[in-house]
């Protein structure tokens, strides 16, 4: 589906507002969500041919309402009669018939986000439903972005809606007291979407949906709705500062370039400037949180002219705080690297030791990759080889495995 000529799909911002209008009139979130999806698909095929209607939102509400009525009446989810009828009608005729052409509450976007990220849903369902309902993407687009069959994605969406129904959740903002916790889950979902795209080296650039860009777009929306939430700002800054390094992160053949070896002239200065300004400002007023700290760490990296010029003392301090706010083995890995850079590899290696007791994490390739790196710093090539070798064998990503295999080979050469 190509809709590129329509101002970068900005019209997809309307999806949750159209949904809000339809749900308020007809009540059933599940059917309404399907109806909005049909309307968006109709828009994506018709608008490039016929031009944007004068009032895109009213057009979408009209088509979605017809679709809703039709769906409930015929009880045939795949029946496309109403959409076909809408396709034949001139866009303005539909708009003039739109009863809900008035202003729609901006809160609908926030309501949709919090409903899609309802804690009763599993993370995969939260992600799929958020991208469709808040992001206005089609099931097919989401499936392609995740390299999954459309039927699998469709199941996740219907599962998500069933969970919402069972939990008795409604299309309304949760009570004020529950909102911070619900918002935390929503941020986690946005971050997962970002990571799915961020870690990809092959594929997604060829697809029509770029998940990192989509996650940034949705997080920007969240920030507009909640300008006083420091963690929303922190997450947005983290995404911008991480995405800024994308052009330098892989070689043309898809091989990974570690942070220390990246060509920093290829980093996106505009994203860095925006991210640094955002996190610097946020830290002056917001209560501290894990996303702000991760953004602050990314900012220190991104502002260093070279790897050697990195302010590791500051990074170490930020990791110490992050361990306090959000303890976990992955945070400890970053903390250990920072400690090694400031106090020497032995200090970092000592911090890694307790992670061996975590049975599951002991099989995580990144633990062994970091230990290999620190042993290399300590000039113990033989032990570094063993760790890199184990890390390569545990990795389930081909570029990561290639990179770790290369590090192991380097150590083996030096050892001989």
């Amino acid at each position: 589906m190509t809709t590129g000529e329509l101002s970068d799909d900005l019209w997809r911002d309307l999806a949750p507002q159209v949904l809000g209008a339809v749900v308020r009139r007809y009540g059933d979130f599940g059917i309404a969500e399907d109806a909005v999806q049909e309307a968006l698909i109709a828009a994506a095929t018709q608008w490039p041919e016929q031009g944007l209607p004068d009032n895109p939102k009213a057009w979408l509400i009209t088509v979605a309402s017809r679709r809703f009525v039709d769906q409930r009446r015929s009880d045939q989810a795949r029946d496309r009669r109403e959409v076909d009828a809408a396709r034949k009608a001139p866009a303005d005729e539909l708009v003039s018939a739109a009863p809900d052409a008035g202003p729609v509450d901006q809160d609908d976007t926030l309501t949709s986000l919090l409903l899609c990220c309802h804690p009763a849903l599993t993370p995969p369902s939260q992600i799929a439903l958020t991208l469709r309902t808040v992001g206005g993407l089609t099931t097919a687009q989401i499936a392609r972005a995740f390299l999954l069959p459309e039927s699998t994605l469709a199941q996740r969406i219907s599962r998500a809606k069933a969970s919402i129904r069972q939990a008795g959740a409604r299309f309304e903002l949760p009570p004020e007291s529950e909102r911070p916790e619900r918002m935390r889950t929503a941020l986690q979902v946005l971050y997962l979407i970002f990571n799915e795209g961020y870690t990809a080296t092959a594929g997604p650039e060829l697809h029509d949906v770029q998940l990192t860009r989509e996650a940034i777009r949705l997080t920007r929306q969240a920030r507009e709705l909640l300008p006083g939430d420091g963690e929303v700002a922190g997450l947005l800054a983290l995404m911008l500062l991480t995405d800024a390094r994308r052009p330098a992160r892989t070689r043309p053949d898809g091989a990974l370039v570690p942070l220390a070896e990246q060509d920093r002239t290829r980093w996106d200065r505009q994203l860095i400037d925006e991210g640094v300004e955002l996190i610097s400002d946020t830290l002056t007023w917001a209560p501290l949180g894990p996303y702000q700290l991760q953004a602050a760490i990314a900012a220190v990296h991104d502002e260093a002219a070279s790897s050697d010029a990195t302010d590791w003392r500051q990074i170490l301090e930020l990791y110490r705080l992050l361990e306090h706010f959000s303890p976990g083995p992955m945070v400890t890995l970053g903390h250990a690297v920072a400690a090694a850079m400031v106090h020497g590899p032995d200090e970092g290696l000592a911090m890694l030791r307790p992670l061996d007791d975590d049975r599951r994490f002991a099989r995580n390739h990144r633990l062994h990759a970091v230990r290999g790196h620190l042993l290399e710093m300590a000039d113990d090539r033989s032990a570094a080889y063993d760790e890199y070798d184990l890390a390569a064998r545990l990795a389930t990503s081909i570029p990561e495995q290639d990179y770790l295999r290369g590090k192991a080979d380097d150590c083996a050469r030096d050892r001989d």
Partner: protein
Amino acid sequence: MATFGRRNRQVDNRVAAPTSPVKGPEESAHHEEKHVKYLILIYSNPETWGHPSFLRTKEGQALSADERDALTAQLEQLLAELTASGELVQGAALADPLTTRTVRVRDSAAVATDGPFVETKEQMAGLFLVDCATPERAEEIAARFPEARFSAVEVRPVMGSSGEEM
């Protein structure tokens, strides 16, 4: 542009007396949680081929009708659950190993022979590709295939083409 270092001093001031730890995004912090696809391989005895294979083995044949029905229901329920949860990506039952052709190229010439590459007591009978959140979940799914009771079910992570920054 203001350097980050100068601004950051304010962080240290505010957290001098930390409050109780806040539940953070531990699962997602630093790209931790990634969905991985797992290939679940069902093995069975080639002497009693047929699907579902657990009903054809000697052990399966020896069960009471009730037990056999219960195992069939167990499999049906598992597949229905995996479909509904959006974890099932693909599944297939394989033909009798007798129909396997093993192809080798030697001196630039392809030679095909009848039968499997490795002759073993158990042969692969079917496969399922699932997309799930944790290795524990993949193992849990594997344990619910009836063949896990009679022969064995193997779980193998599928390599991805995406890489994280090192």
